[in-house]
């Protein structure tokens, strides 16, 4: 029974992620159209006009992935076949698994069984996420190397240097967060944020670590290799960068890994800084408003509200990243390296030191 439950939870986490990536693909195409004042993709049909009507909105939700999966899988003749296959697999697998440790709700109570709404409740959650996200660099490097093409190679080399540079900034930003909560367990961190500051303001991470939020968000966008940090796949310079020589579903895996990274950054921002699944003032038995007002809510409804709250927050931060992507022009490579090494690293380090001193000095003042 326990095995079945964890299988279902793993499936739910994976499905949330897959649905979200497909939805993000559609939002990206329609959203960019909205930003650039054009219509965007608006028609689709099956099997060359078999259906008498236009599928419209279904376009990118279904047509894009389906079309990519039906394209020919081309491997260049000088390429390393095994590595060429391995790269897209390595690019997506760690990112898929990352979502297993992200809590998407508190607990679901069925009868006397209490189910933790998290696919794997490991106590090193945050470390696991960092480790898995950093494995993404292998997909880029191997993809760039295996294709045996100059463009792919340049993209791979650029990508590796960029991703490892920003990993440091990301790691340092999260150290400050761990200092505030004193745990690596994401579910625990989300629960801590259910408390109130001075009885009014929800104790969300953003109020304790605003600087870490900014650092993490910038480093996260850079890790996902999307504009303004899309140097590894810069279309105008490198065709498509490290996946120039990929086609069909393998290429779609690389595109998908970008969207999954967007989703992961959004999920982490939500969980660490915006209370995760917390709804302000909502406890397990109902709303406890400041001033002593109490509105009782059934347990199941509370759980549903929390899951919805998580998904809404998740989507807001995905949309924010898409806005950033369509607003800023691409950076130059030296600017990118300067931002990573000369800004994020020292500021992150200073943030850790200041946080550590403050946590000790104001022991009674912090959440613990």
């Amino acid at each position, binding site marked *: 029974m326990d095995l079945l439950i964890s299988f279902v939870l793993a499936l739910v986490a994976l499905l949330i992620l897959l649905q979200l990536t497909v939805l993000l693909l559609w939002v990206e195409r329609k959203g960019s159209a909205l930003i650039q004042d054009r219509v965007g993709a608006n028609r689709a049909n099956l099997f060359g006009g078999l259906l008498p009507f236009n599928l419209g909105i279904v376009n990118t939700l279904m047509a894009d992935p389906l079309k990519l999966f039906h394209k020919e899988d081309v491997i260049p003749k000088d390429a390393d076949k095994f590595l060429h296959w391995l790269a897209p697999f390595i690019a997506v697998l760690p990112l898929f698994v990352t979502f297993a440790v992200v809590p998407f709700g508190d607990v679901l109570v069925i009868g006397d069984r209490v189910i933790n709404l998290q696919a794997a409740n490991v106590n090193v959650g945050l470390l696991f996420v960092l480790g898995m996200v950093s494995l993404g660099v292998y997909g880029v490097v191997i993809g760039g190397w295996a294709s045996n093409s100059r463009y792919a190679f340049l993209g791979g080399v650029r990508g590796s240097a960029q991703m490892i540079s920003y990993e440091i900034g990301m*790691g340092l930003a999260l*150290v400050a967060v*761990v200092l505030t909560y004193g745990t690596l367990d994401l579910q625990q961190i989300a629960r801590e944020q259910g408390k109130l500051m001075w009885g009014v303001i929800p104790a969300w991470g953003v109020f304790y670590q605003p600087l870490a939020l900014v650092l993490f968000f910038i480093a996260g966008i850079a890790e996902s290799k999307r504009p303004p940090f899309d140097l590894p796949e810069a279309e105008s310079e490198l065709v498509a960068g490290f996946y120039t020589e990929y086609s069909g579903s393998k290429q779609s895996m690389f595109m998908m890994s970008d969207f999954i990274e967007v989703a992961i950054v959004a999920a982490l921002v939500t969980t660490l800084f915006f209370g995760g699944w917390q709804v302000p003032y909502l406890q397990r038995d109902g709303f406890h408003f400041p001033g002593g007002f109490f509105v009782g809510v059934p347990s199941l409804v509370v759980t549903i509200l929390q899951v919805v709250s998580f998904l809404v927050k998740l989507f807001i931060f995905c949309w924010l990243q898409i806005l950033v992507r369509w607003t800023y022009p691409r950076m130059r490579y030296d600017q990118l390296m300067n931002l990573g090494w000369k800004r994020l690293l020292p500021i992150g380090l200073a943030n850790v030191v200041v946080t550590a001193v403050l946590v000790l000095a104001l022991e009674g003042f912090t959440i613990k």
Partner: protein
Amino acid sequence: MNPYIALLISFALCAIVAGIMCGASWLLGPKVENKAKSEIFETGNPPLGSIRGIRFPVKFYLTAILFVVFDIEVVFMYPWAVVFRRLGWMGLGEMAVFVAVLAVGLAYVWRVGALEWD
């Protein structure tokens, strides 16, 4: 139940799904051999040949080495951050020494221009 078993289940499920999605084109797509198609794409020019043994700027190597130094620093900070409250001011002092050494290192590589990208 051990949470790592749940993680393992998640891994297996994701590996199957990722494998199917990677192989979808190979299963479903057409397979037409073509000389031009199997060549690498170099914006329409005849390809210049293999990249094995190609030379690229040493800056990327230097970045990787610097990454190892500073990322290990961050890795050491995680266990410290978790037990930070129990260690108190003593733990903070010890970590301050560790960070100070690396901050001097950062100042040094900054000064000698290892972070400059031209």
